[in-house]
Every structure is written in structure tokens, then in C-alpha cells.
């Protein structure tokens, strides 16, 4: 993970973190669900639940549709998982403990987020079926609306660092975290982060309990992979939020990497809980809010951040 370590080690580390993170998301989802519903929290059952669900999907029968696009359907979950890995690989655990630290880290992250919409559209389009296609168009509308506020919210964090490198962005938060410096940033980022990983109140493109979602025709391993990729994206969004707004490795008493983990998990709990506490939002309302409220707020955030620096 240090700059002199081999790329293979870094890739394996990122993959391992993703795997653990996906499992954590599944467990958290169940725990929060049980707490919100007032059901008793049985630790054993909750820990084994995701494994059981995964095993069920693994033995499920393969299912196809008529004249589907086989390469696209197979590629979509892999692409989403790869994008989550790219985004997570940019998150530093410490000043020199990071899988990749390109000078343009922020742009790489943004490009990964922009490609999420390609992955989701591909996933909804390739089965050549009505319901997945509806989900794909919904995500397209959602994605074209969240891109700009998402970029602006993240961009404001690059201003105090005077650099696009994620490590520098975290380093610049030594004295004061961005969440204090830019109070608008984190809420904006979290709202739009839910939209990026189509989770919780914004999962209309792919709701498990809805007929219309991009994974409506998925079964077995493909469905498992898609769900894992979605959870991985949520992990990446949470980890990047911890780095960009909550000061990454900075914190008293504990070593840096532990702080990164604590902050990421805290954001993850917030994101997962939003799915159980908030009602689902219709796409057209979200689009109006994104263009008319979130973008002006994000611009205001950037202007304030710039003014403070001057």
C-alpha cells in the first residue's frame, strides 16, 4: 500500500476491503431494519443472514430473456464493481497509505461516478425487457440531475487543499475538518451519494420491492453480483465522504487508519439508516429538487469556500 509496494498488493487490499465492506453493508442493513421495526436483534441470525441470502442466490437457476445483449448484461455488474474499486482505491488510510494517489484524484473519482450511470444504463438496457429498461431511464434522469451537485459538493473540498489529489485534500483538514469549514458540503454529498448508489429513498431505479428496476430480470449469480456491486458503491461513497469532509485520518488518540474506518462506518450507518427511515422519492420530484435546490446550494457552498480562502 505504500508507494513502493507492488500494484498487486494494492489491488488485493482494495478488493479485500470491498468484500468486507459489502458484507458490512448487508449486516448493517439488517440491523438497522430490525431496530427501526422494533424487532429483537439476534446477533447470530443477523451475521449469518447475508451469507444465507448469497448462498440462496448462488444455487438459483440461471434465467435469460428474449434476444438479450449477453456481453452488456455480463459486463454491467463487473463495471459497477470495478468503478467502486477505483473510487475506493483513491481513499487514503494514512498520509502514505493509499492504493493510488494520482495528482488528479478528484477528477478520477468524478469520472468513476459518471461511469456509474453508464453501468446502470447498460444493466437496464441489455436484458431487452420492459421493466429493466424503465429502471434504466429512471436512473438516467436521476444521474443527469445529480452529477452537477455531486461534482460541486466534492469540488469545494479541493479548494482549501489547493490540489486535486485526495491525499492533499485530507492533509489540508489537519486543523479543521471540511464538515465544519463547509457545513453545506456533507449533507449535499450524502443526499447525492444516496442517488449515486441508488440506495434508500432514491432506489427507484432498482428497488427490490418494485416491479420496475434494472435488475428485474436478473437471477442467481448475476443478481448477487449486482447487489454486491451496489453495496460496494455505497461503501466507496461513504469512505470518500469520510476522506473529503470528516478529515480522513486526522483524529486524537487513535491511529489514522482506525479513524478512517470509524468515520466511514459512521457515514455508512447514516446512509443505510436513510433507507429505513425516509420514504422513497419520486424521480420527477428529485429532478426538480436537484436542479432547483441542490445546484444553487452547492454553488453557494463553493462560493463560501472560495470567499473564506480569500
Amino acid at each position, binding site marked *: 500500500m505504500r*508507494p513502493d509496494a507492488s500494484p498487486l498488493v494494492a489491488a488485493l487490499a482494495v478488493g479485500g476491503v470491498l468484500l468486507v465492506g459489502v458484507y458490512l453493508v448487508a449486516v448493517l442493513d439488517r440491523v438497522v431494519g430490525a431496530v427501526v421495526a422494533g424487532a429483537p436483534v439476534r446477533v447470530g441470525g443477523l451475521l449469518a443472514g447475508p451469507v444465507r441470502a448469497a448462498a440462496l442466490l448462488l444455487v438459483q437457476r440461471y434465467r435469460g430473456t428474449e434476444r438479450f445483449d449477453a456481453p452488456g448484461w455480463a459486463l454491467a455488474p463487473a463495471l459497477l464493481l470495478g468503478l467502486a474499486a477505483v473510487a475506493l482505491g483513491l481513499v487514503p488510510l494514512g498520509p502514505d497509505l493509499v492504493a*493510488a*494517489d494520482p495528482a*488528479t484524484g478528484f477528477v478520477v473519482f468524478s*469520472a468513476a461516478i459518471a461511469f456509474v450511470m*453508464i453501468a446502470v*444504463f447498460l444493466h437496464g438496457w441489455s436484458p431487452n425487457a420492459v421493466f429493466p429498461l424503465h429502471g434504466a431511464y429512471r436512473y*438516467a434522469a436521476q*444521474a443527469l440531475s445529480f452529477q452537477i451537485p455531486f461534482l460541486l459538493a466534492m469540488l469545494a473540498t479541493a479548494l482549501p487543499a489547493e490540489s*486535486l489529489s485526495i491525499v492533499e485534500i485530507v492533509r489540508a483538514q489537519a486543523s479543521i475538518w471540511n464538515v465544519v469549514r463547509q457545513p453545506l458540503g456533507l449533507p449535499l454529498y450524502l443526499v447525492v451519494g444516496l442517488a449515486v448508489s441508488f440506495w434508500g429513498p432514491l432506489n427507484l431505479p432498482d428497488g427490490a420491492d418494485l416491479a420496475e428496476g434494472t435488475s428485474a430480470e436478473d437471477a442467481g449469480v448475476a443478481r448477487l453480483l449486482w447487489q454486491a456491486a451496489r453495496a460496494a458503491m455505497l461503501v466507496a461513497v461513504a469512505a470518500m465522504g469520510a476522506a473529503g469532509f470528516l478529515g480522513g485520518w486526522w483524529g486524537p488518540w487513535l491511529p489514522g487508519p482506525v479513524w478512517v474506518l470509524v468515520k466511514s462506518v459512521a457515514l455508512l450507518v447514516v446512509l443505510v439508516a436513510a433507507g429505513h427511515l425516509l420514504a422513497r422519492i419520486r424521480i420527477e420530484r428529485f429532478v426538480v429538487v436537484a436542479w432547483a435546490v441542490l445546484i444553487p446550494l452547492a454553488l453557494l457552498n463553493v462560493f463560501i469556500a472560495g470567499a473564506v480562502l480569500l
Partner: protein
Amino acid sequence: MGGADPAGAAERVHRGGGVAVTESLLVDALFWLFAVGSVLTGYRVFRTDSMVRAAFYLLASFAGVGGILVLLGAEFLGMVLILMMAGEMLVMAIVMVMYMMNPAGLNPMWMVHQHRVAVAAGVGAFLVLAGLALVADFPDRPNPRPEMATEQLGIELLGDSMLVFQTAGVALLATMIGAVAIASRRGRYGEADEGSQEPPLAPESDARR
């Protein structure tokens, strides 16, 4: 050719400060991978039987070019190109599907005109340009500080080339206003689909001409 490769390349270029033969071999291999990939997918854009597939192929071609830009040391430009193209391709796919008969854009299609002329022009353009590239003698002055490319660009953008940058911004603003004005359904004299014609000067003459 998804999002993972260019990012990996960026990482490698970023660390490529040390002189190593394996490093340059890797860069060469990646370059040919991106080059062949982007040309092949660019060709497939016009040889595939679905508009959405064409959009995805074009995106793959652009991602390949973005990867080459990163390998050339223009990290920022390459990543911005990839970032920009993702949104653009999605809009393209949606617009195509909107104006085609089949909602998913999966029907076969082959819609060309003046095909021979077009093939000749394409091959001719390639031969002339490639010939020029191979024949001409270019100076060899590589960037002395490749790791500073992004910073140089930032200082140039907000320094000497501020006027160009601002002009580009104003042009984009004008484009946004113009595009909204052209594409908006309601024109000055009514709905676009009903003709949006101006009313006649004399009140009793025929409104529809």
C-alpha cells in the same frame, strides 16, 4: 475498457518518475491496447446494428483516447475527457432511442447514403493524415517536467490564458441558453409541434397562410 483501466494508467504514470525499462514497456503495451481498442470500437460504431450499442462503442473509443492522453502525460485532460463523455454518451443514447421507432434501440439498422464516396473519403483522409504524420519531421522536445503538467495547466488557465478560458465559459453559457431556446417546446408564437407561426398582420386574413 471500463473505468478501471485509465485510473490504473494514471496511477502508473504518476509514479513513473523512476527510469525503468519495464515501466516504458508497460506504457507501450498499454498504449497499443488503448490505440487498437479505440480504433476498433470507433469502427464498430458504424458497423453495429443498434443505436445504443453504437453509443457504447463510441464511449469505449473515447475512453481509449482518454487513456492515451493520460499515458501522454495530460492526466487532467484525459480524465476530464472520460468524465465528459460518460454523460454525453448517455444523453446520446437517450436521444437516439427517443427518435427511433423501437424503445430499446435493439432493432437491426443499416441506414447509409453515398456509401462509396464516404468510404473513399474516410480512407483518403486516413492515408493523407497518416502519410503526413510519417513523412513530416517533427521537433523532439518532450515536456521537461511531466509530473507538473496539471499544475502548469491550472496556472495557465487562470493566468495568461484567462481570456481564452473566460471566452470558452461565455460560449458555453450562450450555448446553454441557445440550446434551451431551440429545444423548448413552446416557441414565441405557440407550441413547436403546431408550427409556432407568427400571427398575420391584418386580423381578418388567414392565420395559417
